[in-house]
């Protein structure tokens, strides 16, 4: 099958455009947080994981230290390791492809791949989404960083409010049941209690410890992933029906997702 006839490649391309576009908000918020243009680009080019990038600049914007920013970003990136495992089982990349696949292993490329019915389609979806997002995300990050630089006082434009909205939008699609909602509330409260007691940036790490302890001692009621936030935070609105419930590839159950 040629690439442009592949349903998975089409899904991957539409996800790449939609996700890449919001790189503009990352670029603008990153320079507003005090990062310079090339530091912003380094995060998009080298770190390349939306949640971790927003976490890094979110800690810096709040006056946190570089090491706190790095820690928050690293902890938020752990799920990518789990995605890597699922994708390795599903796609079995070899040689240099394995190292390239690792770099573009993010929520959206994982969701595109695991939503397909057969391995060939999963491969096409993964690479089109992963590489497509990488290209668009970096272009739009640069555009956003230029806009942010030109804007002057970020507060006047409400850019600090935009950051709040971005984090809530990243969290929202993961709240799919009682346990994730309870974890979110507990961690929010823990954060508020910790803010006056420890230096900026550290409350986020305190909340991370709380979340990890809850996860360790209160396993999911069923062994499925549907309720514990390990569903990739793929654009939950337009693409959900396509990639999670069969879609044009005529697939049944998503593959490669482990129990």
């Amino acid at each position, binding site marked *: 099958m040629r690439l442009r006839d592949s349903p998975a490649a089409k899904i991957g391309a539409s996800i790449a455009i939609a996700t890449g576009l919001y790189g*503009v*908000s990352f670029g603008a918020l990153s320079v507003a947080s005090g*990062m310079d243009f090339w530091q912003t680009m*380094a*995060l998009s080019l080298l770190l390349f994981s939306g*949640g971790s990038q927003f976490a*890094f600049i*979110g*800690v*810096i914007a*709040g*006056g946190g230290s*570089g090491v706190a920013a*790095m820690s928050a*970003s*690293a*902890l*938020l*990136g752990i*799920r*990518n*390791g789990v*995605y890597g495992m699922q994708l*390795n089982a599903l796609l079995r990349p070899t040689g240099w492809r394995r190292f390239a*696949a*690792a*770099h573009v292993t993010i929520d959206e490329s994982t969701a595109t791949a695991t939503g397909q019915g057969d391995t060939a389609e999963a491969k096409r979806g993964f690479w089109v989404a992963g590489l497509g997002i990488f290209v668009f995300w970096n272009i739009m990050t640069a555009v956003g960083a230029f806009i942010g630089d030109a804007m002057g006082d970020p507060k006047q*434009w*409400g850019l600090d*409010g*935009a950051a*709040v*909205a*971005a*984090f*809530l*939008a990243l969290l929202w699609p*993961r709240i799919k049941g009682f346990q994730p909602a309870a*974890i*979110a509330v*507990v961690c*929010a409260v823990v*954060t508020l209690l910790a*803010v006056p007691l*420890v230096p*900026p940036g550290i409350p*986020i790490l305190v*909340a*991370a410890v709380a979340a*990890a302890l809850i*996860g*360790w001692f209160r396993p999911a009621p069923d062994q499925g*992933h549907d309720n*514990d*936030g*390990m569903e990739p935070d793929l*654009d*939950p609105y337009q693409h959900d029906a396509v990639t999670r419930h069969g879609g044009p590839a005529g697939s049944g159950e998503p593959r490669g997702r*482990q*129990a």
Partner: protein
Amino acid sequence: MNLWIWVLLAAAIAYLTKLLGYLVPAKVLANPRMSHVAGTLTIGLLASLTVVNAAASGTAVVLDARIGALVAAAIALWFKAPFLVVVLAGAAAAAGLRLLGWP
């Protein structure tokens, strides 16, 4: 500036985390409890980052225009607005409240 060190270290850790999933035999990491913790960690961190960016100012908890951004974003998400619209709603709410004189 030494923020560069942390940017590059964060990037290296992010890549190695992804790569680890491909290199470590599945059996080693295929512990349901581990992936559950990865999931709860993601939710907890995003909830915490939301709250810090909405209500923390240094080491003080404050109520300012950013709370308006939080409410506006929640309303936009409730109505299934796309990511960029949610972000713009947050920015507009914070900027608007400041025009009205809220800090």
